[in-house]
């Protein structure tokens, strides 16, 4: 429950902090409605549409309604996929509005004790620290390797968890050993002709749980002719914090990253996770009021590129003779990569240039898979409904492989495959891993 006093504080801050011009920019045309997964999955409920959410935020600012449970529910049920932005002819920056609204609500609300502890551990104690992320991931690795995992599965302990969480446990990748995680080099030479100097954003999940994918990424970059620097001092991108209403934490991380990357003066800063990339590219907005950092953030942003973009730009797909055993492949867009970073053609170009592959476009490939950070845990019901829809269209392609470009989406697609009982004939992979297989020409 949000107390009256909390509601009052939230309302006050909505008035002072929400961008009124941006709220007014929404001319309520509804062009965003058909693109919004929660609007569709809720059975066309305006309260779960972008237009409805903007109207609610504006009504709170205007004092027409209080930020009550229903308003909060509407905002919580938003995936933050930002599919509503590229289709908005008025150019409303919905993502920024949502971030601010969530931040205000969370700052002014006393969460229940368990939620408070989880948030504190995750946002303050864990994600900001690469070494702690490693330690936690390592625990998971121990669990997987010690035989405990198979024991737990045998006893059926997982059956006590909600359905999707026990499936989630099954699809988590086997994580690398602590020692491997700690041994990341800081500089790698280009293979063959050096075409560009890049700095690599290694990410927190990507560099622990998905470390092999990061290794693949680095290898691809080297093959494409990149000299790579990996700044040691970099931090988590801050997306989880930013999207969950911990904006100050996110700002701290943004500053650390800007500093870490400034030192290298690379041609490009490369990411291989759509979610991180979209948050990094928004640093200029996040830090717009900070005179010390706002310009540096713009500079940072100007160098940011997704792995797919740089590979296509450096002609990797034409220079390399990519091939794999014959198979059907489809691509699931990472929302943020597509809607915020505007990368949609490049991954498809790369996949289509692999010999042996039959590329099939999935219907509504640009529709969110329902992963959305921790959404699939906190809004499980809606998330699974969205995932079911996604799996229906995925199955229609008859593809053996679903390629993704973001760790969250990757896990979610794996979860979808598991839930559908399709793991014997369908797999989900990150585009970096897939491309590296194609370089070697083996499955």
């Amino acid at each position, binding site marked *: 429950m949000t107390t009256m006093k909390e509601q009052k504080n939230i309302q006050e801050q909505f008035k002072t902090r929400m961008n009124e*011009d941006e709220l*007014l*920019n929404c*001319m*309520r*045309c*509804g*062009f965003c*409605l*058909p693109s919004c997964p929660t609007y569709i999955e809720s*059975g*066309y*409920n*305006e*309260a779960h*549409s972008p*237009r*409805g959410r903007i*109207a*609610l935020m504006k*009504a709170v600012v205007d004092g*027409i*309604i*209080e930020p*009550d449970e*229903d*308003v909060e*529910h*509407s905002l919580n049920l938003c995936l933050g996929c930002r599919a509503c932005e590229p289709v*908005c*002819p*008025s*150019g409303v920056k919905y993502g920024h509005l949502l971030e601010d609204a969530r931040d205000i609500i969370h700052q002014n609300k006393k969460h229940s004790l368990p939620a408070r502890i989880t948030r504190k551990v995750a946002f303050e104690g864990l994600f900001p620290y690469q070494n702690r992320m490693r330690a936690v991931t390592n625990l998971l690795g121990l669990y997987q390797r010690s035989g405990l995992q198979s024991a737990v599965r045998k006893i059926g302990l997982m059956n006590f968890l909600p359905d999707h969480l026990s499936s989630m446990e099954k699809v988590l990748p086997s994580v690398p050993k602590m020692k491997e995680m700690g041994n990341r080099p800081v500089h790698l030479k280009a293979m063959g002709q050096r075409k560009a100097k890049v700095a690599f954003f290694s990410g927190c999940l990507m560099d622990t749980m998905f470390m092999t994918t990061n290794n693949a990424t680095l290898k691809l970059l080297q093959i494409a002719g990149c000299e790579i620097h990996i700044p040691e001092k970099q931090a988590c991108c801050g997306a989880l914090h930013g999207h969950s209403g911990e904006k100050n934490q996110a700002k701290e991380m943004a500053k650390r990253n800007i500093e870490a990357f400034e030192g290298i003066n690379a041609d490009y800063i490369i990411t291989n996770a759509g979610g991180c990339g979209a948050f990094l590219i928004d640093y200029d907005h996040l830090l717009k009021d900070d005179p010390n950092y706002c310009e540096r953030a713009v500079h940072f942003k100007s160098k940011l590129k997704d792995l797919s973009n740089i590979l296509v730009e450096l002609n990797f797909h034409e220079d390399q003779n990519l091939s794999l055993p014959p198979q059907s492949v489809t691509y699931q867009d990472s929302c943020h990569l597509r809607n915020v970073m505007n990368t949609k053609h490049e991954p498809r170009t790369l996949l289509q240039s692999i010999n042996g592959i039959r590329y099939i476009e999935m219907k509504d490939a640009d529709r969110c898979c329902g992963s959305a950070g921790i959404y699939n845990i906190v809004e499980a019901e809606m998330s699974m409904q969205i995932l079911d829809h996604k799996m229906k269209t995925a199955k229609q392609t008859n593809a053996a492989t679903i390629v993704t470009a973001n760790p969250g989406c990757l896990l979610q697609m794996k979860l979808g495959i598991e839930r559908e009982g399709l793991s014997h004939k369908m797999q989900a992979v990150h585009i970096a891993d897939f491309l590296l297989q194609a370089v070697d020409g083996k499955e």
Partner: protein
Amino acid sequence: MISTKVLQEFQSIVGVENVDDSKAGRLVYSYDATPQFQSMPDAIVAPRTTKEVAELLKVCNAHQIPIVPRGSGTNLCAGTCPSEGGIVLLFKHMNRLLELDHENLTVTVQPGIITLDLINEVEKHGLFYPPDPSSMKISTIGGNVNENSGGLRGLKYGVTRDYVLGLEAVLANGDIIRTGGKLAKDVAGYDLTRLLVGSEGTLAIITEVTLKLIPMPESKKTLLALYEDMDAAAKTVSSIIADKIIPTTLEFLDQPTLKVVEDFVKIGLPTDVKAVLLIEQDGHPDIVARDIENITKICLAERAVSVQAAKSEEEAEALRTARRSALSALARLKPTTILEDATVPRSQIANMVKAINEIAIKHQLNICTFGHAGDGNLHPTVPTDARNSEEMERVELAFAEIFAHAIDLGGTITGEHGVGMMKAPYLEWKLGKEGIAAMKAIKSALDPLNILNPGKIFAKDSRKRVVISK
């Protein structure tokens, strides 16, 4: 306010999950796409069948509760703003395609079906439903029928009205009626179908619609003609029609509109010219080729600086999409976007465009104009800021003059967006006192307690006619 007892009656008809009286729920149905209109309903009710609609109306009739039927709320005349409270009636559950009749070339649908879903479905079978409001991705057939919506293909194929063959509707007292049908010929009694089309939810609740379909045209060609001055573009429109060519589409965009649209779609639209015409012809390939050739000649003779044909269907679709987004893209310029819908006989397009520009200068406003030039339907649009009350007054004055001028040229105050609340004060200018009285007589015969979308179409006061000083 609706009492708990009545709410429970609603719940027992449609189920608890289909009645929402939460504050947030009411707020998100308090507006539509019309700027500056907002009012809270008392509850939202979503029936699943015609029978449920009929039962709901009986309850509302007994308690005199206003009913605002709502499709997707994309109308631009405040037609779904619950200005007098009551319930908002949603058709989200009633969105099925009921029958595609290949022998009679008809399709029967529930009102809540999204227009584009219907179009896609019939096109799969090689059939064509021509009305295509720019909002078709979002709007519903129920909304289209009740606003008698038009679109980019209106010039050649007409508007929604021309395709509605039959309706099922629930009257205010709960009676269910059927009008028209699949017959090509039918003169049994008054034409209630036509009466209900465009009635904006004030005469009955539409629960089923039978639409006429036609075969898909065999081919289509798209042109973009660029102009250094607006007059030349407007004259081209008249010349094309005078030459007895009826293109499928003949759309007009002025320079400010072009700029914002390009900013959104980024397809390389020319932004250095003063106006463009988007022209399309469809039909038999030979006839299309001949018409396109003639149209090109006319454009050039009327001083078009360039006439380019779209190279592919993708390019043509990109152009159409660009045109469709014009209105919302204009919202990029200023916080508030006020759009109008004045329509004149197409021979008067050039005069009307000129008048709009003069009115803009007179009131020191920035008016962007685009629209369905081919059918005389223009959308002069003012990017402004509702917080600037001084400017808002000038906007009102300017629009009053634009309407007055349109009527003087033999035109009307709205060509497709409907009257709703927005245009209600001006309706008398077009219809006269007697015309209003006739319409009111129909309204009170069908809805004596005035519970169906009250406050729409008929205003409490009419605006005084402005005298135009030229």
